[in-house]
């Protein structure tokens, strides 16, 4: 028997409290009808005897204790899924907002998903070429990986993400690509930028967009990535697509979680974020991977803006502990006019080691990237020394390091927004740059490889 509950007993922020309820399950969805006929949606977040606490996705504005009638659906929040999703635009809660009407669902799934069983996973090994030297050469993206972009306000992370989407291809072309795009708390312009970019690349028919703008309710923002990932899992593991999920901006998402937590009166931990932020983020990021017996894959590229460019801030910090590496953008490089402004030293791809080299990319890939890392880290020492004693006073080796560093930034890091470099181009460029340094400085590469690839009298 379905009961309708008339009126509420209490409201705090986006939470409403109902008394005298029974037969309600934890996490169940409810439909709240206002006397004006407007419908809102809510979810049970706490049960205590006959009292239920619900969060209202669209906010409690305009709700009074008397004008609301609540119906429980008997089910947790589910997303309607279908192959027709491709090319459509949805709001954060998964309802179509492109005016093309409701979706005819082939299936409905709980948006919280379930954990993938480690024994059912396939360890990711196939790399995705992005055509960006700094990523392909130094922090290779692997299919099934979660590799976030750590950026700051005002940096060109959107261009980088759009370039990855445009240029991404896999070595062994054995399936169709699809893109799931989740915008959380972003400005309208950003959502439009991506939409236009997908359109220009002729990719719009392969994209599913979930858009929660900066002015949309925060509860919906918390649902956005969950809906997006549920759609991604469906496309990947049911329909066999290789799905690339772009989620921007994770910082807005985390702030929504904080706002919601404080409205529930929870004990805050660092910087006011709830203590479960790690588990909460993990429940999103861990939904990437490849499964045995399924042809598709889910690869995530979340974007987050580091508040005050601080990599130790809880949001990038917790993200870095969950994701398989990170790509860090650097304001100093951006100001130097380097695009993409990828700071290679703190950037890292944990899955790279098993997805490069003989049989995957090129035999010398790992040595070249290691040497570039090691040499470029010495550039920083030479630069700080030069800023104290002046460039002229540097030893000859240190001067070569300065030259190497500048050439590395100007030729390796820098590339056009539409420039698509092959992995061979990237590695050959790496060798050319390393040849600026004397052979004795190349301590990460075997003597045979140096003989084979070292370029004498290199000029830039």
């Amino acid at each position, binding site marked *: 028997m379905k009961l309708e509950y008339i009126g509420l007993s209490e409201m705090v922020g986006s939470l409403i409290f109902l008394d005298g309820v029974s037969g*309600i399950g934890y996490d169940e969805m409810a439909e709240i009808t206002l006397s004006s006929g407007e419908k809102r949606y809510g979810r049970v977040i706490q049960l205590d005897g006959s009292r239920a606490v619900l969060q209202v996705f669209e906010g409690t504005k305009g709700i009074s204790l008397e004008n609301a009638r609540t119906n429980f659906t008997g089910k947790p929040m589910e997303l309607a899924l279908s192959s027709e999703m491709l090319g459509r635009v949805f709001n954060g809660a998964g309802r179509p907002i492109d005016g093309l009407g409701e979706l005819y669902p082939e299936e409905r799934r709980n948006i*919280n998903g379930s954990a993938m069983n480690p024994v059912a996973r396939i360890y990711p090994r196939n790399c995705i070429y992005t055509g960006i030297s700094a990523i392909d050469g130094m922090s290779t993206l692997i299919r099934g990986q979660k590799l976030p972009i750590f950026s700051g306000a005002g940096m060109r992370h959107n261009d980088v993400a759009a370039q990855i989407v445009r240029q991404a291809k896999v070595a062994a072309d054995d399936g169709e690509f699809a893109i799931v795009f989740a915008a959380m708390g972003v400005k309208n312009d950003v959502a439009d930028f991506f939409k236009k970019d997908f359109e220009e690349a002729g990719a719009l028919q392969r994209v599913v967009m979930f858009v929660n703008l900066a002015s949309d309710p925060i509860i919906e923002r918390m649902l956005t990535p969950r809906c997006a990932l549920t759609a991604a899992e469906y496309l990947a593991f049911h329909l066999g697509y290789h799905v690339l999920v772009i989620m921007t901006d994770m910082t807005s998402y985390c702030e929504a979680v904080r706002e919601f937590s404080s409205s529930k009166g929870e004990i805050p931990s660092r910087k006011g974020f709830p203590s479960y932020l790690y588990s909460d983020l993990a429940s999103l990021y861990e939904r990437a991977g490849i499964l045995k017996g399924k042809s598709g894959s889910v690869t995530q590229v979340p974007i987050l803006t580091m508040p005050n460019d601080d990599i130790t801030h809880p949001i990038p910090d917790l993200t870095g502990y969950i994701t398989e590496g990170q790509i860090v953008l650097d304001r100093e490089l951006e100001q130097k006019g380097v695009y993409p402004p990828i700071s290679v*030293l703190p950037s890292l791809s944990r899955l790279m080691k098993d997805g490069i080299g003989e049989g995957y990319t090129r035999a010398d890939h790992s040595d070249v990237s290691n040497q570039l890392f090691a040499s470029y880290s010495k550039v920083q020492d030479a630069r700080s020394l030069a800023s104290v004693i002046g460039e002229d006073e540097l030893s000859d080796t240190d001067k070569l390091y300065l030259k190497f560093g500048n050439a590395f930034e100007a030729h390796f890091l820098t590339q056009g927004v539409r420039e698509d470099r092959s992995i061979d181009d990237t590695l050959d460029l790496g060798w050319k740059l390393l040849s600026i340094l004397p052979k004795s400085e190349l301590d990460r590469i075997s003597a045979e490889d140096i003989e084979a690839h070292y370029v004498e009298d290199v000029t830039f």
Partner: protein
Amino acid sequence: MSETKYYIEGVNGPVVTVKGGRGLAMMDMVEVGTERLIGEVVSVEGDVTTVQVYEDTTGLMPGMPVFPKGAPMSITLGPGLLNNIYDGICRPLRGIAEASGAFIGRGIQIPALDEEKKWDVSICVRPGDELAPGAVYAECQETPVIRHRSMMRPDQSGTVLTVVPDGAYTVTDTLVTVKNAAGEILELKLAQQWPIRSPRPVEARCAITRPLITGQRIIDALFPLGKGGCAAIPGPFGAGKTVTQHQLAKWSDADLIVYLGCGERGNEMTEVLDEFSELIDPHTNQPLMYRTVLLANTSNMPVAAREASIYTGMTIAEYYRDMGYHVAMMADSTSRWAEALREISGRLEEMPAEEGFPAYLSSRLAEFYERAGYMKTLSGKEGSITIIGAVSPQGGDFSEPVTQNTKRFIRTFWALDRSLAYARHFPAINWNQSYSEYLTDLTPWYNEQLGEDFLKLRARLQAVMKEETSLNEIVKLIGSDILPEDQKLTIEIARVIRLGFLQQNSFHAIDTYVPMEKTKRMMEVIFRLFDGCRGLVAKSVPLSQIKATGIFEKLVRMKYEIPNDDLSQFGPFEQAVRTLSVKEAFDNEVRVYWSF
């Protein structure tokens, strides 16, 4: 069981309040709701009992039944644990995959051990034998490298009444019956139950006298860990905690590894499972999984089970220690466990202490690390548990509560350093911040096994690295050209030590594991070179001339060029260092030579 009907009163995330009676004991296991989700009693207040549930609580309703199990949270211990992978409360993940597919379902109850498999059992007792606690009554070959010994539970004893003949039995078959002092008949099987939060008793705790040999130079030579000791590896993300843990799990000379992935990445657990099944253990020439038990509570699995997983792992480790094995337990990462503790504490509305962590964080950490040790077991054997816990400090800041509290209960500290990791210097163990208090305990062992000069070389190496650190401060300000030649030489030798000795390539076939003897010979060659160069520098030979000979680069590559099983290849390197000398050329210019 009593007639009391328990039912759910409230639900808040993984915390469920239960009413209906006062009979539930602290830490008792219960099954919650119609799906029978597994939970544990965490507080009792009047007639309201609070339960933490180890699975997702979606769909639980007030009024649903709660079923007490009448015993504390226990796991089944027996043959079949090795070469297997479990979740945080010891449910087999392979079985779960068969039952619910690629994604982990709820309310799945599968026995931890394969109940169909027949083991080739030999019985070690006869009717009339007196069995003390811990006495072995049956043995079977669990994997080609580990012989499983079924022991009397530490809280049971008695006289053997009947035994079955040797033969093939499953873990549920009764092998031996025993009559205890109270006259009860006990049926002994291959497997037994043990509550995860109670340490298994031992006869006595012994002194730590032997190192856990890891094959990692910086650890074996500079910051050793004793068998039965505790170490912590703190470091920011990307500094290589997990790779270091994997290296130790692969190469350390423990008999058995319990590897706990606590709140970490799913792909990493898959990697361990795949890799360990293929990799061959150098000590036994068998796949590493034959000596490994994997426990996985990935970061998106239920948080309450994460809290329990560390005790599950420890109980398994203790079980094998009681058989007389040296067990190494890797916990990656203890910070995730501490955060799970914090999350549950928050839901219980307890008063938080530092950074929201509960005030009992430190005593829980102490309880955990104190379960390590080198023990004399109840059956008179020697066994040990060595704990290696990764710590993931927030923002890489070692002053946060988990790192600080952990430091009080461990004695080896391997501090991972972000700047070393950025320069791709791995293992990124910072030699200035790390320490090992076991060194004094292990001194006799080192002197006996490797000769008295080993520890002298070690001390010299540490002194050179210390001096380099202070010289680098000067170089940062004025450049290296201003330094006198002998100090330049120190920096150069420190560079050889960094690149050729401390840096170790875990992906290189030879370098991934290094025997102690090779480590020692490498140190000897490096210091012979240091002494030789010092002689030349004293004779006013410029360092640049010595550098030009390429001998430093030669020594840096030593680690790759000398095979681990043929140390005679050190010969040419030693010769090169010995023959390093000055020759006057015709034009009166000084030149340095060496022959290889």
